[in-house]
């Protein structure tokens, strides 16, 4: 991205040319991949022209002024639809924009369009979009992951230089791993949730998706920061990109939780991640075994909390103030008919589970118990960070699965086995590509750090990425 910024600064390329390049690419490949729900050609070109004009006057808004971006469709934008890939919001135009969109605009970045996702961000494959599925650019018979599958596929296919996704249990990192792109789930409270359509408010975060760790760091620095309209936004949330990273990792300790390499992990994924860990060691990092014993409960804990919060958050779709309405003679029937028609099967499933765990007779055994186990899971990580700087794990148990392969919802939920922990505990976590399997599919490695220590993740990630690139180019380890 620094190269693009340099070309814009030195007038080797204009923002209009750049935006046109991505629009051409979208036109060429998106009929196969279908990463976008909405492409805003006119809006993006208009913003690019304004950017070029600012540069002509010598007044760019930021070094990234004129570099376009794609936005997941659960982030509110003005002038383009925000559908959450749901029939419920098919014709919804937000009257206000998300804080992250304001920040993107303040940096001068044109918005290419809105990307596909699982309906209301519920899913791990983008197959639950109410409109159409998105395909993995590495293999069109496979899913891109989800729920930010559209953003991941768009970046992987070169339809956008970078994108915003959202992550509640792994929805940036799992598709990032499946599509071979970098994605960060920031510390809870670091990026404003104002204007993000809520799935589970105590877990949701917006984050960057990009082709390199360095680019993800830049995009993170643009969107991070305090916002008093989000009561969970941290006062010191701003982030500054590190000028330079060291060429080794001396003095950095890396924890490896053996529980993450147990049953259920694809051997090729395990092998690739272990090689990367070896590389970290060769770069000077101290590698230590650690234990996160409660992670085996993370999926059940996560499911209990996410369905409970979702069933409550989605109560707002009642046909009164926005979205779909199915007319009926009385209010209750109108609510029911509207919700029955507007929500897809996975959304209904989760609303039903969430309603169950919150009922008077079950909420203590299910919901309250999950909140307590969440504390134990978070304490595991807290304990780990008293002795290591970052934790390294595989991002997902397998590489991208085939479209239609996971018909069983409970099997699908296991995709988040290694990622949900960071949402439950609020920690920042990044996925980056660390290899490919024999089928040619990308393998993702996850780096987790202590709260607000994205700097450590980016340091380790950038050094590792550099080293992986050298090996790929034929250099010696």
């Amino acid at each position, binding site marked *: 991205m620094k190269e693009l910024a340099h070309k814009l600064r030195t007038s080797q390329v204009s923002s209009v040319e750049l935006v046109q390049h991505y629009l051409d690419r979208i036109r060429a490949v998106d009929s196969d991949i279908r990463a976008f729900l909405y492409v805003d050609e006119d809006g993006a070109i208009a913003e690019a022209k304004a950017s070029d004009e600012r540069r002509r006057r010598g007044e760019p808004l930021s070094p990234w002024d004129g570099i376009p971006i794609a936005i997941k469709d659960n982030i509110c934008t003005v002038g383009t639809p925000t559908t959450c890939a749901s029939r419920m919001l098919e014709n*919804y135009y937000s*009257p*206000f924009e998300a804080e992250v969109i304001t920040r993107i605009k303040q940096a001068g970045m044109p918005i290419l369009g809105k990307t596909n996702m699982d309906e209301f961000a519920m899913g791990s494959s983008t197959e639950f979009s109410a409109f159409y599925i998105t395909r993995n650019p590495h293999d069109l018979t496979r899913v891109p992951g989800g729920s930010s599958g559209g953003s991941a596929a768009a970046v992987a296919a070169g339809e956008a230089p970078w994108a915003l996704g959202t992550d509640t249990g792994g929805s940036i990192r799992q598709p990032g791993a499946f599509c071979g792109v970098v994605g960060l789930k920031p*510390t809870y*409270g670091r990026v404003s949730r104002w204007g993000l359509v809520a799935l589970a408010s*105590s877990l949701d975060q917006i984050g960057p998706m990009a082709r390199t760790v360095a680019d993800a760091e830049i995009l993170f620095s643009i969107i991070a920061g305090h916002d008093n309209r989000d009561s969970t936004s*941290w*006062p010191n949330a701003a982030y500054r990109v590190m000028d330079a990273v060291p060429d080794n990792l001396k003095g950095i300790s890396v924890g490896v939780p053996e529980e993450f390499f147990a049953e259920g992990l694809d051997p090729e994924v395990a092998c690739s991640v272990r090689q990367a860990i070896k590389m970290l060691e060769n770069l000077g990092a101290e590698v230590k075994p650690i234990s996160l014993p409660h992670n085996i*409960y993370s999926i*059940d*804990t996560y*499911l*209990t909390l996410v369905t409970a919060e979702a*069933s409550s958050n989605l*109560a707002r779709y*009642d*046909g*009164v*103030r*926005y*979205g*779909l*309405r199915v*007319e*009926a*003679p*009385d*209010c*209750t029937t*109108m*609510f*029911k008919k509207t*919700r*029955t028609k507007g*929500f897809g*099967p996975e959304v209904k*499933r989760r*609303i*039903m*589970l969430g*309603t*169950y765990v919150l*009922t008077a007779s079950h909420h203590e*055994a*299910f919901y309250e*118990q*999950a*909140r*307590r*186990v*969440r*504390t*134990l899971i*978070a304490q595991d990580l807290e304990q780990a960070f008293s002795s290591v700087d970052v934790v390294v794990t595989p991002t997902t148990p397998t590489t991208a699965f085939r479209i239609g392969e996971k018909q069983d*919802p*409970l099997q699908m939920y296991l995709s988040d086995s290694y990622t949900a922990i960071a949402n*439950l505990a*609020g920690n920042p976590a990044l996925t980056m590509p660390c290899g490919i399997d024999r089928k040619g599919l990308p393998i993702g490695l996850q780096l987790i750090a202590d*709260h*607000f220590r994205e700097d450590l993740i980016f340091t380790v990630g950038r050094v590792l990425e550099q080293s992986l690139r050298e090996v790929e180019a034929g250099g010696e380890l």
Partner: protein
Amino acid sequence: MAELARLELSEEEIALYQQDLNRFVQSGAELRKIDTDNVSRTAYVGRAFSLLRSDEVAESLPQEVVLQNGPKVVDGCFRVPRVMEDEI
């Protein structure tokens, strides 16, 4: 349950979700066996800080913009079917 969630489900859907619910309950059985008597419930993750902001008057969205997505808007209000008889 569907009544509580304000959903109308077909017989097939009820059967399907019941099956999912049973499996969900089974898979989480271990979770409910963990001794958490002395464990507090997580309400907020991360560092605690003051949630209060200064009490300042700020601009809000104009009424017509707020109402622009309303499926049925009459005289600056969202219009809904009769409520009273239905609930009492």
